[in-house]
């Protein structure tokens, strides 16, 4: 399923291309690890080993695999292109979680409805905030109030950082358009 995601998902293909372009070519055998995880966690990014962990006991469908791979590749991309202090700077952690929830399809209308979260107008933003909060609380021992404050502080900046997609890819079609733009980027910037 991982191989299929890397070969066919326009989200993953764009991120893999952007990472290669930034000097962080991804090798499946080196940068991915399939493990059994506790609870309902789907995956994670370990900056210390430069590895994406995929929870093989909690990923059962290709669509879920595609989304988890995209989510974790966004963290990897942030690690590759920026000085992200994962362990000591909660604002950095929050920012990458906001971006991953925003750009991976985690907060699509259909995914939210399947979680019984019904909302329409601007619900995507509400979902991104909520999922970023959950991710932070899962890995750091801080209060909910403190986590909310940090998410609020960085939300506007990080929600509007759409790199490397250039847009929020709500659907596979959006992701294909973004991938098309990415493949055209040399011509694009040469003629601005």
């Amino acid at each position, binding site marked *: 399923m991982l191989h299929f995601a890397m070969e066919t998902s326009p989200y993953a293909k764009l991120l893999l291309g952007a990472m290669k372009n*930034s000097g962080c070519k991804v090798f499946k055998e080196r940068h991915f690890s399939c493990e059994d995880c506790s609870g309902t966690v789907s995956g994670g990014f370990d900056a210390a080993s430069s590895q994406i962990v995929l929870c093989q006991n909690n990923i059962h469908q290709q669509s879920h695999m595609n989304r988890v791979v995209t989510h974790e590749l966004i963290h990897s991309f942030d690690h*590759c292109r*920026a000085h992200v202090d994962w362990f000591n700077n909660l604002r950095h952690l929050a920012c990458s979680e906001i971006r991953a929830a925003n750009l991976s399809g985690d907060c699509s209308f259909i995914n939210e409805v399947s979680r019984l979260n019904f909302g329409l107008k601007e619900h995507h933003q509400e979902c991104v905030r909520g999922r970023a909060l959950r991710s932070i609380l899962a890995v750091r021992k801080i209060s909910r109030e403190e986590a909310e404050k940090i998410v609020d502080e960085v939300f506007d900046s990080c929600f509007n950082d759409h790199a490397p997609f250039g847009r*929020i890819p709500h659907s596979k079609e*959006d992701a294909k*358009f973004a991938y098309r733009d990415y493949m055209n980027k040399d011509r694009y910037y040469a*003629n*601005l």
Partner: protein
Amino acid sequence: MDRPEESRWRPPRVCEDYWTEFRHCKSLRNRFHHYYTYGAMPSCQQWNEDHNNCKQWEMHRSPEAKEALQKSERNRVAEQKNFTPVWQLRQEPPRDWHMPLNQEKPQDS
């Protein structure tokens, strides 16, 4: 000898891409996604204008069309950068990205 810039320049995107972006922008699905994200309908007319200008350049090499298209795309780039980054961007990738897994720190040579 360099060719004049006009003969080297071409639109940032193929003209067909502006048209497909316009159609995609106006689609029901995209309007839904935009409302779900921003609580408002998307503005799509700029894609149509860009397509027209692209065709004007293709057919007549209009300098006004070229300028309008460049201005529009520069605006798009500026909009994508319209935020204050939380972190500092790297000049080089992380040193340990490609290191084997049993070697966490650089060795002294």
